[in-house]
């Protein structure tokens, strides 16, 4: 089924979480894209005014959300649905995040199941692989995901499982999952940026795992590619190059303080509890073992060639 090859003036695209970190990056590109006729923006906050935008205020965590979504999308199906309504930064009370990320995704999939979306694009994280001593030097998309980790990761894993099931039932509706490396950039809020933008960053003594990063422009580029991509499935979206954590901290303008294991754990817990800025203790494993994802599938199948090195992404973080 040629979903995006209809004889129509342009594509009609829906974006949930249009004012979130990723939504803010993608929206200008969609608006500038002459092939896009209309953008149905779904969020709680109002996106900037634009004649192309059709804004609907829908709270995906409420149970009426599915009905509201049907109303918002109207009678004709959208050509693509970007489900970007995720909480990238951990919040107090993982319950809300779980409701939004897992249940929200479920509602979006319901909409697609009723034939209201011809293509689905979901963002995920390379963190779903989890930090593990067993990882290969570069993790491919078919690697097993972290079984049980922090809420932040496990919600994404659960969401991916839902998408997986959906794809099996509806192979004709392309569903793309973009596993993004930690997004670093101006105004971006996630555990990685919170961790790296501190003046003093606790690290583990004797360990300096390789990290990846993603420049906001590359993230937007990858999402935009998802709109017309021929391929479907899971893609690692990573920057070019890797950096040892300590180099990343240094480039971000901080100083890494290598602490012996137990002390680092305590420090992270204290930062989480008293710092008030969520840097989860579960991050410890991410500063212990490498978790470098292989971006070659995205390069070959999606045509995503990162334009920025991990260094540039960290530099973008520093500028902010």
């Amino acid at each position, binding site marked *: 089924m040629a979903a995006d090859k209809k004889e129509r003036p342009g594509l009609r695209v829906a974006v949930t979480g249009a004012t979130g970190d990723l939504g803010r990056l993608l929206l200008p590109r969609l608006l500038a894209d002459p092939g896009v006729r209309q953008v149905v923006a779904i969020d709680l906050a109002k996106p900037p005014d634009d004649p192309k935008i059709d804004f609907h205020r829908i709270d995906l965590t409420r149970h009426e959300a599915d009905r509201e979504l049907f109303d918002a999308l109207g009678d004709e199906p959208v050509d693509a649905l970007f489900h970007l309504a995720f909480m990238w930064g951990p919040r107090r009370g993982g319950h809300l995040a779980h409701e939004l990320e897992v249940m929200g995704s479920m509602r979006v999939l319901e909409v697609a199941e009723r034939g209201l979306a011809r293509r689905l694009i979901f963002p995920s994280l390379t963190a779903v692989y989890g930090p593990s*001593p*067993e*990882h*290969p*030097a*570069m993790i491919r998309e078919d690697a097993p995901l972290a079984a049980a980790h922090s809420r932040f990761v496990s919600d994404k894993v659960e969401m991916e499982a839902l998408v997986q099931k959906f794809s099996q039932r509806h192979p004709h509706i392309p569903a793309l999952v973009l596993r993004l490396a930690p997004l670093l950039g101006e105004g971006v809020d996630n555990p990685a940026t919170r961790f790296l933008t501190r003046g003093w960053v606790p*690290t*583990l*003594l*004797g*360990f*300096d795992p*390789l990290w990846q990063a993603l420049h906001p422009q590359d993230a937007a580029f990858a999402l935009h590619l998802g709109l017309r991509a021929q391929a479907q499935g899971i893609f690692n979206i990573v920057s070019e*190059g*890797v*950096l*040892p*954590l*300590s*180099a*990343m901290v*240094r*480039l971000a303008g901080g100083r*890494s303080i*290598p602490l012996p*294991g137990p002390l680092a754990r305590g420090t992270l817990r204290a930062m989480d509890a008293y710092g008030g800025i969520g840097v989860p203790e579960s991050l410890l494993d991410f500063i212990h*073992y*490498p978790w*470098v994802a292989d971006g070659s599938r995205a390069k070959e199948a999606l045509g995503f060639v990162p334009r920025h090195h991990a*260094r540039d992404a960290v530099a973008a973080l520093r500028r902010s």
Partner: protein
Amino acid sequence: MAKGVLGNDPFRRGAASRTPEEKQPAAAVAEKAVPKAPPAKRKSTAKGRAEASLIASPAETEIKQPIRKKQARGNRAGARKPEALAVQPSAADDTQQVTRAIQDATPEQPQEPEIPVPEDAGEDLPPSVRHGLRTRGAGAERLAEAEHRRLLKMQAATDLDPSAPIRPDDHRSPLRPRVDSAADDGSDAEAEQPSPRTSVAAQDPAEHLPPEATGGNRTGASLHSVAGALALARDVAAQTFRTDRVGQAARVADGLFSALMTGIGASGSDQVDAYGKDANLAKKLSPISNFFYERYWRVTVEGAPHVPQGPSLLVANHSGAIPIDGFILHQALQRERPDLEEARWLAEDQIFHAPFLGTLYNRLGAIRASPENAVRLLDEGRPVITFPEGVHGIRKPFQERYQLKRLGRGGFAKLAIRQQVPIIPVAIVGAEESMPLLGKLPGGFLGLPYLPLTVPPLPARWMIRFGEPIRMEGISASAAEDLLEVQRLVERTRESIEGMLRALLKERGTVFGG
């Protein structure tokens, strides 16, 4: 270019890194400019000497900062006097600071090299040449004058108060007084210092700045004494670092420091390849690794031509309480077969995930041993170094040295069959004796199976022999599942390595000699 002794900020650009070779071209320039303004030299020499005793007063400690750069040249000649040379290079701190001073001063007048010459040298030249020289000197003088005026203003502002803040951009200020004292010591010893070392200094024009001290711009004797002392100290440092040994020591210290910082995870490089190898670190460590490779362990390599172009699986015996055989074998390949793709070695989990060591090894080129990683490396056409014995090879007690343990579960053979790459058996002799495993201490607190009890590396002679390649001819890729075929390949490899080990041990006369 190597970094300063300590490798951290304040000393980063230390002259320790400047090798004598780098200075040679400049020295050649200097030769042309030899006959230059000898009278000025004579004058300032006298002055420098007279003023050497003044320099330690606290008020001057403060001024000398600003005037250092240009005014120092006024007393250049005096500074270059042998008195400078009496300072002991052992004062590593001082020499470091002085070195910085040199570095700062040198770029300013690179095209005005000068050398002390016999007083009458200038008279022999045709007038035109002499004129040319003088005009250049005059230009420098004007420059110096402007600078001098600026400094005087600054001096007035601070009113010679020793506690007054020094220029904010000058982070070296706390170090100054010590330089002075060094220079002061030196002045006493002037008489008994022989001149040959002065001539060494003369080869390096970088330290010799133009003689603008014609008397016109001198205002305060104190300024000059300080400047003289500084120039003198600068030369001392230059002398010190000219000697290869100190420079070498500085580079070694720098290499060790970077390795330490990298190992603890405090200063990873931002220039690593996709697997985490930091080429700069390897370069920095090269004085150390070269020393161990060439002089300490005297590694001899045989059969390196056996390694074919393209992907290959090198299978070696594993030994040493702290396994360095992977790194040395990788070095050997780099030296003997620079035509090959860069080899990588696979490190077992216990090493790869060990704190400090694993991190350092990863930056030096080790990759976690896993079939997936090996395939990736082979696909890139690299020789891949494996130690199928794994941790069993390095865990065996010293009395079992050179006894090959089980070669894992034959994973390497399966891999070679599946990827259709040749296996090159490698025997390494010497690693067992250089780091014998004497005992095992509990290492659970570090996440290690045990902490090896060993000695600092001993100077055993190393021998590496590459065997005949075992090619996969007649073995189809599907045979990887055929346990018999795999076992046969493992046995062949094992026999080859054992045979080479026996031969090498027989050839080796004594463990440490030869």
